């Protein structure tokens, strides 16, 4: 049962983070397409955003390991 709980936690976290990172990257690509000269700046901001989003599934993985 605890393995199931861990799997559900990790799966849902991966789902949410996947959607979030997808939205971030797609908006960045749109921005770069509009203003190619801002590419470097936009990419840096994108990576910071992805880093912040990514913390959530990582914490979910830690919680899942604790549940197991």
């Amino acid at each position, binding site marked *: 049962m605890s393995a199931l709980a861990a799997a559900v936690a990790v799966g849902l976290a991966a789902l949410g983070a996947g959607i979030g990172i997808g939205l971030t990257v797609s908006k960045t690509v749109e921005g770069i397409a509009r203003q190619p000269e801002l590419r470097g700046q936009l990419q840096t901001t994108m*990576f*910071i955003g992805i880093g912040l989003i990514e913390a959530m599934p*990582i*914490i979910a993985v*830690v919680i899942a390991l604790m549940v197991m």
Partner: protein
Amino acid sequence: MDSSAPMLENVFGISWLNFNLSNILMMFIASAIVFILCVLGARSLKMKPTGGQNVMEMVIDFVRGLISDTMDWKVGKMFLPLGLTLITYILVGNMLGVMTVVSFNGEVWWTSPTSDPGITLTLAGMVIVLSHYYAIKMRGMKEYSASFFKPFWPFLPINIVSELSNTLTLGLRLFGNIFAGGVLLGMLASVTGGSVLGFVLGAVPMLAWQGFSIFIGGIQAFIFTVLTMVYISQKVTSD
């Protein structure tokens, strides 16, 4: 892959004082590699740089760009050594575990130093403590303690929790990425080394995941440094 760490328990007879010998070994190796590479890159400087000096200058320029993106260069230039140390150490540490994992008598000795939560959380904690230190030093105690009550006083608990969660996420992000990469590499390696069919099916994903791990290692070193600079600049610059 399901092997334990070489723990040295109850040092000096103290019941809670345990050392992970593999961590200590890998920290020394990573620091030594960074030190040797940087000394080789910075030795015999010339006006027309060649080889190692070119690489060093590129890394320094890169970190310099990161810092000047997040704060004023006049304030930020004192954080250049910090950023340089963090990015090189974490990058080398991440790469060590991607290349090889050595286990001896069922205990993993050679792995990424950054795949242990103790090391990454220590790095993150040091960075946050440093940001508070520079906030007090550069803005004064009064303005520093006032910053906890921004935008108005009920935000005090939220600001304190945000400091804690900053530390936690900064360390756990690095740990989680490198650790997960290492676990998957170990699984693929055991499939690939198991049988002929396993080799045929496992070799290509193994190579692909190793390449991706190198990419992740670079990105994580980059993100750790950028977020360090962002956190410091939030504290240091007054608005």
